[in-house]
């Protein structure tokens, strides 16, 4: 059994984001980097499956990006992945989801993975496209937004999180790809001794040029902060009228009223 888990390194979301000189993405200086939170769940699930299956199962972790993503790969290795693949790409941040998916698919296509795990989306770009697109490129069965996962003999039983906390139960036949949602499991901390041991695990480095043949399909033309909040509004008057005014404002300015 061969398993692949795809991870992305993203800035700590508590950071202050400033547009880079290019104006189309954030300035990367002074940021602390983390494994994309969704991907931590993906790695944890993959490692649990690896432990369930035991010997004869190989778990590979893949990440695309500049040198620093080596740290995210090491973290995944310390959590229990067997080997790493680092697709070297200093310009990964400028690639659209279509290209990122194409890189992963190009790497995975001849490897015979039975299962691929990804996060449901990245915290920084948040497009929720890469996993599904990889599955399409490879012709794998796919389900997104997993909050429950079980594997038995070539069949994945997945619980998808739907709106309002309802779950949809789905069965997939391998080869399959699933995208993982927060709360799927409790990602372990890589222990310090395991981080040390991870130094000895292999990380294969592949230049992105060997894998990417696709042009982007979409372009980011601007990266900017949201429009500033106007000063607060004060509503006074008769209760019935106030309720209507507030309803109007909430409908216009927030996304919580349906």
């Amino acid at each position, binding site marked *: 059994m061969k398993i692949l888990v795809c991870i992305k390194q993203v800035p700590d979301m508590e950071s202050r984001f400033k547009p880079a000189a290019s104006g189309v993405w954030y300035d990367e200086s002074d940021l*602390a980097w*983390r494994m994309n939170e969704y991907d931590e769940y993906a790695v944890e699930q993959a490692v649990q499956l690896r432990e369930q299956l035991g010997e004869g199962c190989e778990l590979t972790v893949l990440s695309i990006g500049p040198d620093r993503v*080596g*740290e995210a790969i*090491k*973290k995944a290795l*310390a959590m229990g992945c067997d080997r790493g693949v680092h697709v070297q790409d200093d310009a990964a941040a400028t690639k659209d989801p279509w290209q990122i998916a194409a890189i992963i698919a190009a790497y995975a296509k001849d490897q015979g993975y039975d299962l691929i795990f990804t996060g449901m989306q990245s915290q920084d770009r948040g497009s929720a496209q890469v996993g599904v697109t990889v599955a399409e490129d490879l012709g794998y069965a796919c389900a997104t937004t997993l909050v429950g996962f079980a594997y038995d003999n070539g069949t994945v039983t997945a619980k998808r999180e739907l709106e309002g906390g309802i779950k949809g139960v789905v069965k997939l036949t391998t080869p399959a790809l699933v995208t993982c949602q927060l709360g799927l499991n409790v990602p372990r*901390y*890589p*222990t*310090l*001794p*395991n*981080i*040390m041991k*991870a*130094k000895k695990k292999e990380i294969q480095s592949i230049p992105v040029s060997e894998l990417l043949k696709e042009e982007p399909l979409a372009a980011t033309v601007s990266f900017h902060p949201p429009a500033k909040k106007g000063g607060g509004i004060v509503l006074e008057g008769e209760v019935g009228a106030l309720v209507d005014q507030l309803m109007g404002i909430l409908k216009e300015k927030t996304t919580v009223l349906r």
Partner: protein
Amino acid sequence: MIKDESTLNVMIETVQKFVKERLIPFEEQCSENDEIPHEIIDEMRELGLFGLSIPEEYDGLGLTLEEEISVVLELCQASPIFRSVIGTNVGIGALGIVIDGTEEQKKKYLPKLAAGEIIGSFALTEPDAGSDAASLRTSAVKDGDHYVLNGTKRFITNAPEASVFTVFARTNPEIKGAGGISAFLVEKGTPGLSLGKNEKKMGQWGGHVCDVILDNCRVPASAIIGEKEGVGFKTAMRVLDKSRTHIAAVCVGAATRILDEALKYAVERKQFNKPIAEFQLIQAMLADSKSEIYAARSMVLETARKYDLKKNISTESSCSKLFASEMVCRVADRAVQILGGSGYIRDYAVERFYRDVRLFRLYEGTSQIQQLIIARNMIKEVS
């Protein structure tokens, strides 16, 4: 010296996350109950924190001092009591064995200390021998292939939890000073070894300190660290050279957190129609604190690098400990001031830190003792 930067960064990220998710949310509770819940200690154990400084061949992480300090700077963003739990295994409670122990002693204790299966304590201070540790009176009298220990050790960190004590005792009553002292590894449960009641401390509630009483306590001769009489005080000083740098890092970590809390408050709190952070008198306190933290941090890292190059750091570690421990108390005092009345109220972490950090100027050599060491070393060099 940093052996592998990216591996260290992964460790730091892990510790940061652990501090944020598992330690800070519980620090107030631990302080209030004067107890760290077992689950948290288990998690610290699992994470491998007890083995930071113990060499890899004894199942520790074998971090260089610079690496250890980089981890400690993060760990100490949470209450210092969490560091205190691992503190003796990483520092004074294990270092005697690491530095001067026999191969057998290392094999027997270090893997367990590294795993946090057992806790080690360091018992030097006595009721009548604090700063003047070389005057200690605990006696160790040879009786066949055993020694019989008698005396009282005071303020021993983690003694209630410890399984093995590094006890300093006088094997040669003829030599009054340092030369008559040997270091023994005394295990919990040895007949004649008992504990006093836990002291009620000013701060660092959740970390425990008590007397260790030795009443005709018989230990085999093989329990002397290095199986060599009369070098115990040297061992103690070598242990302290290294661990003072560690304590200095603890101070820098705590100060960083305290300043964060003060800054957060200052930008939020409004008086006279503006955030108090806009007042220059507040800014001065913030800026002085920032500069002093930066200075202490640089000192600690520089000292650690020197240690990793196997150079003598007696002066530098005392300079770092002196400056950093005094610094963190100034920073804490300013933070209380910036918070105004709230800084005096328990709900704010600053109030707790203010009490917690006061200890750092006292143990592992008071500030005055650091001054003496520094000055003595200076004078020795010119004469």
